[in-house]
């Protein structure tokens, strides 16, 4: 795959939030308004790109058994860097993000890309992958942030839109985030299904993402779950 493809796959085909469904905690917590989402997305992009770069350089030096701690140390270094930088140059964003900024260390997207991509690929490809994934994450956060901010406060990036002033407060809170994210995921699956239908193939969502494995409702009647 070319470098450009490694970069673009993060936006749609392997979007970290919409397809891989990783990093749900920062997605739901920091997408309540667009500015917050943008700040979080950019901070994560920086960490992703930096950690992917370093991990791809040291991938042959790190013993397999202790690779996860090594990756965490690298990621934590970059998170500290971005935290100090934001504290110095963007104190407002630092204040609003609060605990979620240091929590980038345990963001599944960062560790996931390190483990799944940077530890197996070269320098340039890893950097492109990190940048693409980070920008894809930022894109989703800003989209979600815009919708939620508009519905909850009638503003976009803090500017009043003058057409909706009845604040649907639930959209600014976690339940609204869950509902909207669910709707967006469903919409994305719909588009993928349409595309597959046009190409003449049957679209199957990844096995762990649909509800066939759950036994509460009867969608799973084809193959009953057997527990011993």
């Amino acid at each position, binding site marked *: 795959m070319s470098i450009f493809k490694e970069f673009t796959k993060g936006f749609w085909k392997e979007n970290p939030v919409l397809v891989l469904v990783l990093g749900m905690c920062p997605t739901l917590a920091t997408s309540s308004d667009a500015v917050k989402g943008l700040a979080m997305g950019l901070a994560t992009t920086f960490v992703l790109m930096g950690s992917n770069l370093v991990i791809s350089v040291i991938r042959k030096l790190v013993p397999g058994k202790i690779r996860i701690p090594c990756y965490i140390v690298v990621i934590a270094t970059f998170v500290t860097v971005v935290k100090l930088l934001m504290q110095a140059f963007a104190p407002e964003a630092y204040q609003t993000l609060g605990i979620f900024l240091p929590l980038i260390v345990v963001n599944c997207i960062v560790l996931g890309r390190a483990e799944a991509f940077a530890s197996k690929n070269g320098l340039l490809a890893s950097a492109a992958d990190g940048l693409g994934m980070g920008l894809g994450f930022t894109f989703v956060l800003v989209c979600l942030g815009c919708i939620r901010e508009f519905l909850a406060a009638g503003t976009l990036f803090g500017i009043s839109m003058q057409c909706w002033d*009845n*604040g*649907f*407060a*639930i*959209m600014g*809170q976690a*339940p*609204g985030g869950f*509902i909207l994210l*669910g*709707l967006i995921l*469903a919409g994305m699956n719909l588009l993928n299904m349409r595309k597959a239908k046009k190409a003449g193939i049957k679209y199957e969502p990844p096995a762990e993402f649909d509800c066939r494995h759950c*036994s*509460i*409702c*009867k969608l799973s*009647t084809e193959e*009953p*779950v*057997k*527990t011993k």
Partner: protein
Amino acid sequence: MSEEIEKNNIALPEPGSLVLSTSPHVQDGDSIARIMAKVLICLLPAVAASIWFFRFDAVRILVYCASFCIFAEYGWTLATRQAATIGDYSALVTGVILALNLPPGAPWWLCLIGSVFAIIVVKELFGGLGQNPFNPAAAARVALLVGFAGPMTQWAAPATGSLVSGATPLGAIHAVQGSADAMAQLGAPDNLMKLFLGNVGGSIGETSALAILIGGLGLMAFRLIKWQIPLAMIATIFVFTGIVHLAAPGLTPGPLYHILSGGVMIGAFFMATDMVTSPITPLGALVFGGVIGVLTCIIRIWGAYPEGVSFSIVIANALVPLIDRMCYIRPFGWHSHSVSALNIRRGEIK
């Protein structure tokens, strides 16, 4: 399938050897449309009471909610290319119950958002009628109450009443909390009579306990609801608030005041008893009603919101699969050590 049967040593005849008899089969002729039409008939007293007490406001909200719900359902079936389901009146029932749960001053967009939320988010996205885990009207009311705290709590006095203030009976509790005399005054017989007839502030359909009681008895006469749910819910609230009132008279008024005020009646008879979102077995229904009653009392007495019926119904709806699993009907010869019982508990046999 056949493998499982062999494993459990159940001997069934060969499918081909089963005798299929011709008609007449016993059938009661019930369909979704007929059941929903019966529910609508039972809602008529409450609708009439709401129009009597709130006049044009009630008519406006009822028309808005009913039409928005029907349009939302029709639009959804069009967009997803399914057969139209508005003919079974379930959207109409949801719309009417939602309208009865809104305050008299609700603007049109509140009705629109509530209806779309009830029909599309709560019902259709989970698979349509029969698949929804939460009661659409109750969940929509919760979403509106949390989302639009302002317009959802602007109460107006009934148009025909001599009541001047716009406070609801439950809001009045919080206003006078701490004084045992004021609480006793709230529980005075003439005040209770007013609550029973419905000449008080509140959501348009919840104020008249009498009208809802008539409709609820109709539902029971039609055998559409399990009588255990309203009984358990109202009895739990009676006992719980009775004990709290006796222990701390300044904290909350007597049990009758709690039962007749707010959404207890409409919740007990029309929302908690939704066939889809309530437990299957009679024992489960008792547990379900009890859970709603306890949660309602806790929210009312110690919570930040003056009213908690819709919250309790939604929370208890989420517990229904667990209640069903706990209260399944034990077959004859059941023993707690038998393997099949454990399998049912684990959810293997459906």
